[in-house]
């Protein structure tokens, strides 16, 4: 019992009362508390109710005053001081008070509780308003930061046109190509890059076919998705991508047969890799087909960026050439591990880690998403 009494007194002085002390006091037997002086117990109960809510200093002072005033008003009427604090503490904790022997303290408790509850409600409301203010301030700061970062990337020549539209457009480009790159950040559509991006020519061919496929696929699937039921959308998209990829491969074979032969089986596999790049957020009616096609083209541009970066890195490391021309100084040092499957996995893993480091993406809840 001595510990239970000392802690609230420290709390009075240091303004650091914990919730544990409140529980200890509330669980005290009734007989022991009769020895304690009444006024100190009342003040304790006031502070205990107010401190755990972490109100600010001004609010707590005003609330203490109101609580103390209400208690002072009720005390002289009854004059029965000794049995009051026990039931007081119990009621503040929220437990149902047992019917005491004296009928007076119960009626007084009903009168005392209402201002205390009001005070606690006031403190809660004040705290909530403070939180909202802080949240608003942080949101405004973040918006200002993003706006400045976007504006820096915009060229100053574009002041004559619609500046907001330009800022939005360049932000969109930056998001699709860099910060939400479909290969280096989202790690979808990695198979053609792993398999065929061993030289810059292959990378250009892959990116060309991919942009063509993704744009056409999105433009065809946008009206189809309005009518198809949900279970058949993936199936329809798969068939449509097959319809698109066949003439695309023929066109690629017509332009550059040798590069198409080098890409081999990985060029028609773009049909499957384009499936996750359908803009599913555009299923709603508020986007038009033009915006869908634009976003799809930006996604394809992100793939092209990834393919060209990856193929250049692999060609320089593995073959010592760039666009099939030997580079001076490096052409003799061939690190052919980069052209093997193991090298492809390793380089892609390192590049994904690099992009996640730059753009602050991380998988914290990777164990939750299990298909």
């Amino acid at each position, binding site marked *: 019992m001595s510990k239970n009494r000392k802690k609230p007194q420290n709390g009075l002085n240091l303004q650091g009362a914990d919730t544990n002390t409140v529980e200890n006091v509330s669980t005290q037997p009734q007989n022991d508390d009769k020895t304690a002086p009444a006024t100190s117990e009342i003040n304790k109960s006031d502070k205990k109710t107010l401190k755990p809510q972490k109100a600010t200093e001004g609010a707590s002072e005003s609330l203490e005053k109101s609580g103390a005033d209400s208690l002072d008003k009720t005390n002289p009427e009854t004059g029965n001081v000794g049995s009051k604090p026990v039931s007081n503490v119990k009621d503040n904790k929220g437990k149902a008070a047992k019917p005491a022997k004296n009928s007076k303290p119960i009626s007084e408790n009903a009168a005392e509780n209402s201002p205390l509850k009001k005070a606690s409600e006031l403190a809660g409301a004040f705290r909530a308003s403070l939180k909202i203010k802080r949240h608003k301030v942080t949101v405004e700061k973040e918006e200002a930061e993003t706006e400045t970062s976007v504006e820096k990337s915009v060229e100053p020549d574009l002041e004559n046109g619609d500046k907001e539209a330009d800022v939005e457009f360049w932000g969109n480009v930056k998001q699709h190509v860099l910060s939400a790159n479909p290969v280096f950040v989202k790690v979808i559509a990695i*198979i053609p890059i792993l398999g065929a991006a061993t030289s810059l020519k292959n990378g250009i061919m892959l990116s060309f076919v991919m942009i063509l496929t993704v744009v056409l696929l999105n433009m065809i699937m946008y009206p189809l998705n309005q009518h198809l039921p949900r279970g058949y959308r993936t199936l329809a998209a798969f068939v449509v991508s097959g319809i698109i990829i066949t003439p695309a491969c023929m066109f690629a074979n017509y332009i550059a047969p040798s590069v198409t032969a080098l890409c081999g089986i990985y060029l028609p596999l773009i049909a499957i890799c384009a499936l*996750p790049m359908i803009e599913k957020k555009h299923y709603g009616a508020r986007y038009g087909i033009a915006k869908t096609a634009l976003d799809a083209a930006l996604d394809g541009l992100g793939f092209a960026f990834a393919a060209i970066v990856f193929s250049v890195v692999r060609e320089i490391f593995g073959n010592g050439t760039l666009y099939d021309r030997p580079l001076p100084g490096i052409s003799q040092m061939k690190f052919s591990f980069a052209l093997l499957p193991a090298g492809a996995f*390793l380089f892609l*893993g390192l590049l994904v880690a690099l992009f996640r480091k730059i753009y602050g993406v991380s*998988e914290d809840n990777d164990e939750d998403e299990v298909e």
Partner: protein
Amino acid sequence: MNGAQFWSLAVSAIFVQNLVMVYMLCDGGFFKALKSPVSGLVYGGLVTAATTISSMLSWLLNRFLLRPFGFTWLSPFTFILIIALLEFSAEKLVARFAPNYKNVLRKLLPASAFNCAVLGLVFLNVQVNMRGFLGTTFYGFCAGLGYLAALFIAANALERVRFSAPSKIFKGLPIALVTASIISLGLMGFSGIVIPY
């Protein structure tokens, strides 16, 4: 074909020409399926079924329809149509005969059928085209087993990686890719073996 040829085909499909580690036909679904062993096993089994049936049907179509009439330029669309029909019929069969498993297989069936491993294996079969009907079907089955083996090896390797606490940027897919690189390096030891079929 005799037994030795079938044996050599099996070794070739599972280890020498592994779909995941040598041909790199793995997408995000491969690494997502690694996270729980049961779904990985079901996923690998579905992929095995898809590779077997699709390589069988694609050989028939390629032999009797595409080659004689000079429609080889139409092969991507034809094979994609085969796989789409396969997935559609599998969904219908599951809904008809095993409706209790419909919710379990709702995500796994498209993920295993619309997989790069299945379509890539069909294209590889067409490229080689000297195994015959039985050989192609058996090769498709063994390639699916190779996919399952790669899934099993990578799952065990990544379970060990999970206890070693990689750094924050490597956590998840990047460390999985680096692990796949090391496993692929190990499977390159089989690459000297020359198999006639």
